[in-house]
């Protein structure tokens, strides 16, 4: 710790503390005392977190076959997978989100059997479109990452497993997938932070996440900066937790160091 707390760091920490104190004392935080807003903020954080977790899991589940198809699939699987990744990576997420929400949202009501189905009460809400768009986005970006990871697994190991007569699914489950996952693990934390940074876009299609809550507070109370500052702090905290979790996860995975 001696190295970290050099004299200049103490001065900088002091300045930082002074800025934080000034923010707490001089700015208008009275709206935080309102129990209505407290509840909304907690709900907003919860929405942001579950959307992040669900879309990362769904997206990775899609990314694995996408990466595999590109790395080892026949051309009729590899080409569509590559096209899909190119499409997702080449257009803004906001546009994809709006295409799905406004496009499908205007198409579905005109189809009678969808209107009549049991799923209709769910499809009328905004969150399925948010989850769909964000999951597809993860799938597109991570599909590309997984392609590299699958290709990076030493070929000799796969051949050895084949020579020992291991069935193809077992090879995939025991050798190929675990090593590919281990390869992407260091980048996955960063990708999850990037995905977290994309979640506030869902507020533009009326999903009430933490960003939407802060916008609402700003509109209700005419307080301009403070909710934005709180928002930045909340996102930094979530990013910190993500980085910490992935570091812990990485430390649990044995890595052979040469």
């Amino acid at each position, binding site marked *: 710790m001696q190295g970290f707390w050099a004299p*200049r760091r103490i001065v900088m920490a002091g300045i930082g503390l002074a800025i934080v104190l000034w923010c707490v004392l001089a700015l208008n935080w009275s709206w935080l005392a309102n129990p209505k807003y407290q509840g909304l903020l907690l709900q907003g954080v919860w929405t942001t977190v579950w959307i992040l977790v669900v879309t990362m899991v769904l997206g990775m589940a899609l990314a694995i076959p996408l990466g595999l198809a590109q790395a080892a699939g026949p051309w009729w699987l590899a080409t569509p997978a590559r096209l899909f990744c190119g499409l997702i990576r080449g257009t*803004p997420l906001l*546009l994809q989100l709006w*295409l799905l929400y406004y496009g499908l949202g205007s198409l579905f009501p005109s189809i009678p059997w969808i209107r009549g189905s049991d799923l209709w009460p769910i499809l009328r809400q905004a969150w399925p479109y948010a989850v769909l768009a964000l999951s597809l986005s993860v799938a597109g970006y991570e599909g590309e990452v997984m392609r590299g990871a699958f290709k990076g697994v030493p070929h000799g190991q796969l051949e050895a497993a084949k020579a020992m007569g291991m069935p193809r699914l077992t090879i995939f489950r025991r050798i190929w997938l675990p090593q590919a996952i281990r390869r992407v693990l260091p980048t996955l934390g960063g990708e999850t932070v990037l995905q977290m940074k994309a979640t506030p*876009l869902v507020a533009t299609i009326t999903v009430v996440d933490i960003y939407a809550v802060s916008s609402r507070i700003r509109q209700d109370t005419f307080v301009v900066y403070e909710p934005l500052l709180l928002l930045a702090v909340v996102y*930094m905290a979530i990013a910190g937790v993500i980085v910490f979790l992935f570091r812990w996860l990485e430390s649990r995975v044995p890595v052979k160091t040469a």
Partner: protein
Amino acid sequence: MIGGLLQSTLDYLAWSPPGWGATLVVALVKSILIALGAFGLGLGIGTLGAYGKLYGGPVARDLLAIYTTIVRAVPELILILILYFAFTSSVNNLLLAWGYERIQISGFVAGIVVLGVVQGAYATEVLRGAILSVPPGQIEAARAMGMPPLMLAWRVTLPQMLAAAIPGLANLWLIATKDTALLAVVGYAELTLVTRQAASTSKAYFTFFLAAGAMYLAISVLSTLLFGRIEAWARRGQVRPGGS
């Protein structure tokens, strides 16, 4: 059915006013210009930042670390909102303090500045890595010959780091073009917002969103080709590993 669909699509995307073609292209040009401006500003900030992180004093390094950490942890949308308000109000405060009139800052300039600051943080990391890839012996040799720092950067470091920096910079440029869409949320009429206006006026959601998607995709495909060319140019004269 298909003929009718094609006809209505062509009508919607027609150049002159009942169609939205001209409006969309103008918005596309605005998006590209903002992306270009932000990318350029980001390159400038990134070059300074990379040099600061590598050769700057301890305080400069700490400050740069804080800058890149914050920008990489907070969503662009929120940075855009904070900087958008903070930038316009602080420029106006400065102008008032110097005795000038307060001005209306255009969304165009604010967009470039805000996205440029975001790009700068990522560019700092890309360029820092690229500078590190230049063989240190060459920089030391230039210093030993008494080359002034600016000339050293211009003649030795920058030309050689370019090859290593291009893939990262290409990625940043693509991020810049896509991040311009975020300005739609603060109400700036770039391609995505104009597309939504066109789509909700005409109710032809798929037509317009797919057309805009095709435009963004065209930018990304063309830029990928262009950056490939630039990389080949930047690598001219380099010995390829394993090549003759």
